[in-house]
């Protein structure tokens, strides 16, 4: 079978991207960008670069697909996925650059909501990630994914896995240790707790063992992925699979909207929200969606949430083994020999986690940024390390600091400030930390604090490679989540019902509420 379709679609996708680049580069989009926020519009540099590269790629591939000859084989199969991938990318571009900013403009026009002090789009988390997933859901359910794009839509999984692998570059060892420890405790308690709760409730409600098994994996571990992994092991009936996946998808999509609203109302920190979403949301795809919905312009929340996702997926083989043994003990029809420990662990082991660890190890060696960097930022107060002479403090700024110096009492801060005054720039990381503490303590005037912040920025540099990784991660997750949206069908969500919906609602709600309480009480605001 030849998979590559002789369709003009990919060429058209490429031409649309090139048109966006052309209009943006020649200022023809300026009035519209003015409408979307003018100087506050953040995507001007993306508009004049990204659509050019991908537009050329898509148009060239599109021409070849339309006019070239295609033969059965591996190359044909892989090349057939390009059209779908570019289609998803185009949707992600349109949503990120135009739809989400337009929603923000409309939201601003409505004003802030009551006492919350927030605009409606902020409160509901209606940013490019959530809108991208929603667009994917609308496309698959209203229009259907076009035939020429079907193969490429599956690449969204690859996008997300690559995003997680690259995320490995952004953790410090201490961060990974602390987050890893926290996630093992939280996931350990809540995964085992909810798997046990479903099995117990299932026995009380006298549901078949196969249904209890598949439902407990889905509700307890990582949603649809766990259902897919566990269904063959516990010999779930087709209708049981449908009930379980329907319930999880419906619950997951609802959580993606509700969690950020609750997070905003409680004023949760990025760490707290990431930990809560990573524990309380049943489905792993919506964990990433909710994390990016909560913090669209940074990836601190995503970093926390993904550690929880990784912990969950590492727990999956153990849970599948547990369920296999549990099922075999209870069902005469189950073949005892099917619990092959080695095969289960080999098949269910998430290989991308190894990629994540490799990137973390490489990043720790300083290959992507100078040593001692944290989140890609490093200290440098020489020209060789990136400091600009124009950032040396001016006489007027020195005068302000000298006048306010007597207000400082702590010795380390006093000494750091003195060295800054003498050298016109911050002299060490320790001085930088001490002066940041001084700013946070709000001892000095607003003007003096502004000068100190400027001095801090002048010696803190973001490594170019890490900056590029952050950008790629954002795009890979946006791409992956739009594609996953295209795999959420209303017809599958409609299958939510019966006893699984009752058990699911009970356990899902219990897990969300209890994990919220635990996070608010026990998880500190920073790691």
């Amino acid at each position: 079978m030849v998979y590559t379709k002789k369709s003009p679609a990919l060429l058209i996708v490429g031409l649309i991207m090139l048109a966006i680049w052309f209009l943006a580069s020649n200022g023809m989009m300026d009035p519209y960008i003015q409408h979307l926020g003018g100087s506050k519009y953040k995507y001007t540099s993306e508009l004049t670069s990204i659509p050019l590269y991908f537009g050329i790629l898509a148009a060239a591939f599109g021409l070849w697909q339309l006019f070239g000859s295609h033969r059965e084989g591996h190359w044909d199969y892989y090349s057939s996925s390009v059209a779908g991938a570019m289609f998803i990318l185009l949707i992600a571009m349109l949503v990120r650059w135009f739809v989400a900013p337009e929603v923000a403009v409309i939201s601003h026009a409505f004003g802030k909501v009551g006492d919350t002090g927030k605009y409606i789009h902020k409160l509901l988390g209606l940013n490019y990630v959530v809108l991208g997933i929603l667009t994917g859901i609308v496309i698959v359910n209203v229009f259907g994914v076009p035939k020429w794009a079907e193969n490429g839509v599956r690449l969204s999984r690859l996008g997300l896995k690559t995003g997680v692998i690259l995320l490995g570059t952004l953790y410090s060892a201490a961060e990974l240790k602390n987050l890893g420890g926290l996630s093992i405790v939280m996931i350990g308690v809540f995964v085992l707790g909810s798997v046990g709760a479903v099995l117990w409730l299932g026995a009380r409600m006298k549901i078949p063992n196969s249904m209890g098994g598949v439902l407990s994996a889905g509700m307890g571990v990582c949603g649809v992925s766990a259902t897919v992994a566990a269904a063959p092991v516990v010999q779930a009936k087709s209708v049981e699979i449908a009930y379980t996946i329907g319930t999880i998808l419906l619950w997951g999509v609802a959580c993606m909207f509700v969690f950020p609203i609750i997070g905003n109302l409680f004023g949760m920190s990025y760490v707290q929200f990431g930990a809560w979403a990573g524990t309380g949301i049943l489905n792993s795809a919506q964990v990433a969606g909710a994390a990016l919905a909560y913090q669209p312009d940074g990836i601190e929340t995503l970093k926390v949430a993904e550690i929880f996702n990784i912990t969950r997926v590492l727990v999956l083989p153990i849970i599948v083994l547990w369920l296999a043994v549990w099922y075999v003990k209870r069902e005469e029809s189950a073949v005892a020999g099917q619990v092959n420990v080695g095969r289960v662990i080999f098949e269910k082991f998430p290989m991308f986690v190894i990629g994540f660890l490799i990137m973390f190890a490489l990043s720790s060696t300083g290959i992507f940024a100078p040593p001692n960097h944290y989140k890609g930022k490093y200290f440098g107060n020489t020209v060789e390390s990136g400091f600009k002479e124009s950032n040396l403090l001016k006489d007027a700024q020195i005068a302000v600091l000298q006048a306010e110096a007597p207000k400082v009492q702590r010795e380390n801060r006093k000494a750091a400030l003195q060295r800054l005054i003498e050298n016109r720039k911050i002299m060490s990381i320790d001085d930088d930390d001490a002066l940041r503490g001084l700013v946070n303590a709000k001892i000095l005037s607003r003007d003096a604090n502004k000068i100190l912040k400027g001095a801090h920025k002048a010696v803190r540099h973001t490594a170019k490679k890490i900056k590029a990784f952050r950008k790629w991660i954002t795009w890979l997750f946006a791409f992956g989540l739009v594609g996953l949206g295209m795999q959420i069908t209303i017809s599958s969500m409609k299958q939510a019902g019966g006893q699984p919906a009752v058990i699911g609602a009970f356990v899902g709600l219990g897990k969300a509420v209890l994990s919220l309480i635990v996070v608010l009480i026990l998880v500190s605001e920073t790691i």
Partner: protein
Amino acid sequence: MNNILLSSHGTEGARAAERMAIELAPADATLHHLIVVPDLWKGMMGDDWLNNGVSRDRYARYLESELGREVEEHCERIRSRAGEKGLHYRNTVVLGRPEACLLRRCREADYDLVVMGSPRPKGTPGLRSRMATERVTRALPVPLLLVPHPHG
């Protein structure tokens, strides 16, 4: 009435239609059985992204074999009942939307009568993949017998 098309996918309402179709069919008639596997199953991989290809393939094969086994059991039951009355039995299994598949089948072949169950009462457990009866009744070029649900 030598060619009767029975549209059934094993629900309780459809079983009532099966009994009626077999009862109505004269001896030596052919009972054509249309089984539609709803296309909602195409979305039953959901938005899984954590599993590797081996796990997804195993799941897809398992689901396919489960659906195949259910269809086989269903067909075997009707084949046996039809045989007891001396009817010829033929079946067709298709994937898609129930009403679209039924209408396409009726356009492709000549039937004297179409028999199917009426929509199940609300709240009855089962897959949510109902036949759009109104659309079928408007577009069907063949006489239609709609058999009441046993608990309707």
